[in-house]
């Protein structure tokens, strides 16, 4: 999350008011940086106009890699590199390989997905996420608008937020 310098932070008391406000602010052509809420709000993705996450697609390919890698490794090890007779079966016998393949598919899909999510969301251990208003972890809903990304003036946006139900509008500057 690249952090700009100057933000206007609208503070709301009610999730429904936030949703209405998001709608009116976006209709007025203002780009919203982020909305923070103490809990998940259903349908907020649609209001914010977020596209469907592509994480599942990535996950599918991680799984596919895991599946092929596991099968290849077991086939190569038990079939060619160091053939062993186990349980009187052929060197290369598919059924006993399936559980390991399955586990490895899940392992790579899950870990790959989590790591991708961390990278995409810029969640590294030393990350210092910008805190716009500490009350967003308690009982307030916060809408942050990057002034550098919007052409409208601070006053205009301020008025827009107040009109659409913000209980207060603060300015937040990061150095």
């Amino acid at each position: 999350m690249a952090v700009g310098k100057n933000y206007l932070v609208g503070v709301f008391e009610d999730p429904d008011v936030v949703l209405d406000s998001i709608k009116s602010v976006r209709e007025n052509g203002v780009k919203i940086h982020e909305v923070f809420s103490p809990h998940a709000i259903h349908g907020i993705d649609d209001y914010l106009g977020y596209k469907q996450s592509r994480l599942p697609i990535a996950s599918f390919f991680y799984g596919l890699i895991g599946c092929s890698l596991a099968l290849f490794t077991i086939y190569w090890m038990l079939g060619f590199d160091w053939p062993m007779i186990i349980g009187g079966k052929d060197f290369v016998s598919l059924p006993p390989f399936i559980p390991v393949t399955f586990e490895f598919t899940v392992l790579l899909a899950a870990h790959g997905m989590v790591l991708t999510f961390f990278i995409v969301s810029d969640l590294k251990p030393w990350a210092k996420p910008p805190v716009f208003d500490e009350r967003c972890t308690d009982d307030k809903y916060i809408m942050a608008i990057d002034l550098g990304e919007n052409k409208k003036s601070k006053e205009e946006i301020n008025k827009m937020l107040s009109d659409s139900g913000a209980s207060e509008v603060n300015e937040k500057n990061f150095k």
Partner: protein
Amino acid sequence: MTISDERFDFTASAKKKLAITIVAGILLLLVGIYLNIASVSHDGGHATLQTTVTNDLVAFNGANAEQAAGEHHETATWLKRLYTDLWINNVFFAGLGLIGLFFLTLQYVTQSAWSTGFLRIPTAMANWLPIAGVLMLVVFFLGKHDLFHWTHEYLYDKASPEYDALLDGKKGFLNLPFYLIRMVLFFGGWTLFFYYIKKRVFAEDIEEPGVKRWKQIRAASAWFIIFFGYSTSIGAWDWVMSIDPHWFSTLFGWYVFSSWWVSGLALIALIVIILKENGYLSIVTENHLHDLGKFVFGFTIFWAYLWFSQYLLIYYANIPEETVYYIQRLTSDNYRAVFFINLFINFVFPFLFLMTRDSKRKLATMKIAAVIIIAGHWLDFWLMVTPGVMKYEGGFGFMEIGTALIYLGTFLWVTLSNLSKHSLIAKNHPTLEESLHHHI
């Protein structure tokens, strides 16, 4: 809101379509029987070749009784095959009706709200249960000696050359009176539970809104689910596993349940989609369909998990009494292809096809998946029943398609005519409002 008065109209054109399905089924069945009779009378040499293989197998199984038993009854191949087909459809469609009731009760027990909008569909499906019970009894009495090897008296007679020690050991459970008691108990129990719940479901429609009925149904549902757990598992041993009476698999009850469950879910989804396409059920949105799709997707994998768990253990342990089940299916040209097709259309296809979010949310894709899964699991039952009864004479042809169409048409007729008797929406259901706002 006017949705509460929505009623399904079982139109003449819908009836006509179903009637055509049934008639087409009867015609296909007759063609199949005719072809079967014709091919048997022309094809003596081929049959001998197959018998040799069968004898090897029977010897491998450690029991000569089956071969000897062949001399005792002279049921014509086509009749035997007809019994087999009837039995497959009996079990499969009884399962679909039962899943209707199970789905309904599961929603009450888990206090689910998302499904309330289309709960009338599984409720209507369960109307098949009493009919299924009668059909099971009738077909059992007609074809019990052909379908179930263990029903022969001489197997338990120590003086008889066909005395079967293994089956005699199982006689405490697998005997005719107890078998019939179980069958009557299960179908009777399911039907009674169904009528008890159904009465309260529809009483809710005409009473003041409240949670009284919901609580009554919930209590009955909890008891039903306990009964369901035991009865489906034992039913699966009785009606499917006992066709191969020497063979056993401890997870077979689950396997049959998973097959019923996933095809039942697919049928619920299919009926929802067809109703939506005809302008009904506007309150069921893509969000509800998405959840149904997840159910189908998830239990497709569950089915595959059980299929594989059964296969892997039998393959690995390599005990002749157990492997005979798969050898029968894998060494015969009649079954080998279906064995792999079964895996493909019931696991590989839905797994890849229903993986994306969109395919579960769109009517067209869900419809394709539902139809294929229902057909696929019918095929799964075909593969469970046919080799045990028909040995190497089984096949998939006009007779199978014909009987399946007859049963499908009748099942849908019963479902839809019951659906049209009451309001399509459970308008006084306490969780209906929550269902309307379901969003994922």
